[in-house]
């Protein structure tokens, strides 16, 4: 009998030793003369349990974790290959509460399949969305996406259907689809997980986007910090070309589409869409003035769809199951699901795909299990380095684009970073400016100069120099940056800074002020 074992090849799992565990299990099975078949699957996203290995049993897949190489021999001794008990037993994978309490749509296959097996992909509903789309007119594909309520998951939350319609209506022989895979926000890794663990879903989403708007060429602009994703994407693209999903006359239709990955070069600003396009054109990633919108004049001046990885990877399930299926999840104008990333100082970190509407408190305590250090959670930053810091009194805010806007915060790309009570929020505020100074493209003054002046003003407040004057100067600087910057880099850096100042003035050496006014 051949036993089937699953060991993740996700780079976070590898960063915790998954490759070493894989090697050790191979060695041990050879030593014991046991036939095993190892699948390098994706990660299920329970990173406090990684490396989490699974074995196939008649009861379903049984999980063990976190496994280190020193556990391997005892796992064999306990007959884990038959799904038997061991101190690392986690039971039937599907029954683990963390997974059970999710609604995995975009992430339906992640962790289950072999990322580069196109047979696995097809078996698990892959390319059904594309096949449906090929039977529809361009207008009807876009109508389906618009009706689903899908909004840009990169952070801006712009309705995807409207963006696509603009590109479709822009008259041009040449159009492009560009995937923004420059996932630079700290606390986010959902793009990386899709690219490493289910690359075909992104490829399928991009093909459908191309079909819908009439583009025959696609680029994935991938950050250079993701060498592992680069390998897997290129491998998957080659397979898709081989199987006729990419290239000329896709699946016997009139539609042709080519796709390639471009490696970025470590500039955070290139996650901003116009800067990304400049970079893709082989220039410095300087932000462009808008209008014209990239949908009208994008890459090389041609109409271009620029979408985030998650937006594009969500398209296939919408085109497979229909707009209303997707739109039935979520709340208000935030329809569908969001892959939420729990990061930082939490006991249980990882990926949770959930319909909009779940509260921060549920995420931090029910899923996250509280802080990793066991100390009280003092603040969380949602939506990356440009997102506001939220204090405990705001933990009941439901995850919803509009509700977050009401409290001057952003959902962004769904990354949540928790800090315990040892954090000095004035230091975090200063870091926000420092990061802006390092990463600013320098085109507009508020961002280029404001970020450096901001650090100086915070230093003065902390030293106790003219505190009242300098606090008002800091707020004034914040206003200037919010209203005067060309893009979100300068325009949103004040969000974390001012929220830190408002909610944690004592960290700046100031008296607690009444923020209710």
């Amino acid at each position: 009998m051949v036993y089937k074992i699953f060991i993740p090849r996700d780079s976070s799992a590898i960063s915790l030793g998954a490759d070493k565990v894989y090697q050790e299990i191979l060695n041990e099975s050879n030593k014991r003369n046991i036939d095993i078949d190892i699948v390098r699957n994706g990660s299920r996203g329970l990173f406090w349990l990684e490396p989490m290995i699974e074995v196939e049993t008649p009861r379903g897949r049984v999980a063990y974790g976190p496994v280190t190489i020193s556990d391997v021999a005892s796992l064999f001794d306990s007959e884990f290959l038959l799904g038997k008990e061991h101190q690392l037993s986690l039971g039937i994978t599907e029954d683990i509460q963390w997974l059970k309490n999710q609604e995995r749509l975009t992430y339906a296959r992640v962790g289950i399949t072999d990322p580069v097996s196109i047979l696995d992909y097809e078996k698990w509903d892959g390319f059904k969305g594309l096949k449906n789309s090929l039977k529809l007119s361009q207008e009807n594909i876009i109508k389906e996406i618009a009706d689903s309520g899908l909004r840009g998951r990169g952070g801006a939350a712009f309705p995807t259907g409207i963006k696509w319609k603009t590109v479709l209506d822009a008259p041009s022989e040449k159009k492009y689809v560009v995937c923004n895979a420059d996932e630079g926000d700290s606390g986010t890794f959902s793009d990386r997980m899709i690219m490493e663990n289910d690359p075909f879903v992104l490829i399928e989403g991009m093909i459908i986007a191309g079909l819908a708007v009439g583009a025959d060429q696609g680029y994935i602009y991938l950050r250079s910090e993701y060498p592992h994703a680069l390998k897997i994407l290129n491998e998957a693209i080659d397979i898709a070309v081989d199987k006729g999903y990419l290239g000329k006359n896709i699946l016997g239709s009139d539609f042709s589409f080519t796709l390639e990955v471009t490696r970025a070069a470590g500039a955070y600003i290139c996650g901003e869409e116009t800067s990304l396009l400049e970079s893709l054109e082989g220039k410095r990633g300087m932000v462009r003035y808008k209008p014209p919108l990239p949908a009208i004049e994008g890459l090389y001046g041609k109409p271009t769809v620029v979408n985030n990885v998650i937006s594009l990877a969500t398209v296939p399930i919408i085109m497979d199951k229909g707009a209303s299926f997707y739109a039935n999840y979520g709340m208000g104008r935030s329809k569908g699901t969001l892959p939420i990333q729990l990061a930082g100082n939490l006991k249980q970190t990882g990926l949770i795909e959930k319909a909009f509407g779940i509260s921060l408190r549920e995420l931090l305590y029910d899923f996250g299990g509280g802080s990793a250090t066991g100390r009280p959670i003092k603040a969380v930053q949602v939506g990356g380095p440009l997102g506001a810091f939220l204090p405990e009194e705001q933990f009941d805010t439901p995850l919803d684009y509009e509700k977050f806007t009401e409290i001057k915060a952003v959902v962004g790309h769904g990354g949540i970073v928790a800090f315990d009570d040892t954090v000095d929020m004035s230091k975090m505020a200063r870091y926000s400016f420092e990061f802006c100074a390092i990463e600013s493209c320098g085109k507009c003054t508020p961002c280029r100069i404001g970020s450096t002046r901001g650090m100086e003003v915070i230093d003065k407040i902390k030293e106790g120099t003219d505190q009242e004057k300098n606090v008002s100067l800091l707020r004034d600087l914040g206003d200037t940056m919010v209203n005067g910057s060309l893009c979100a880099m300068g325009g949103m850096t004040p969000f974390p800074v001012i929220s830190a100042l408002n909610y944690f003035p004592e960290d700046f050496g100031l008296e607690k002020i009444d923020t209710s006014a």
Partner: protein
Amino acid sequence: MTLQTTQLETIQGHIEKYQNVPGALLPLMHAIQDDLGYVPEESYKTISKAYNLSVAEIHGFITFYHHFRTHLPGKNILQICRAESCQSMGSENIENYCQEKLGINYHQTTKDNSITLEPVYCLGNCACSPAIMINEEVVGRVTPEKIDQIIKEARES
């Protein structure tokens, strides 16, 4: 410093390969740095002629991107994540530990040329903070003990 013939040949080969590729500079510079470990300033003139760009434009391009470097780094590159998630799990201690242990600051190389230390802003390993990357390998939940091991292996490599 003048370039060796083999380096020049490598650069020339890549220039020709990407000559007709739209947005050539990005893949070109990656290709050169992948092979040589850096993009030598001595190559700017050749590239500028081939691509009909000014030397200033090449310089502007290279210096815009954190990833590209114009000097040969040490044998191994150790990047330490400085972003928020890693900060929340004590990355500052890891930064200090590495700098002390190696006796260098960021953007510097150890005397034995074994390690170049660089900051990085997010490796997408935020669920396993603090994180570092040694060459192309990400390591999660790093501790001083793990750093010792990484440095030891890098020095022996």
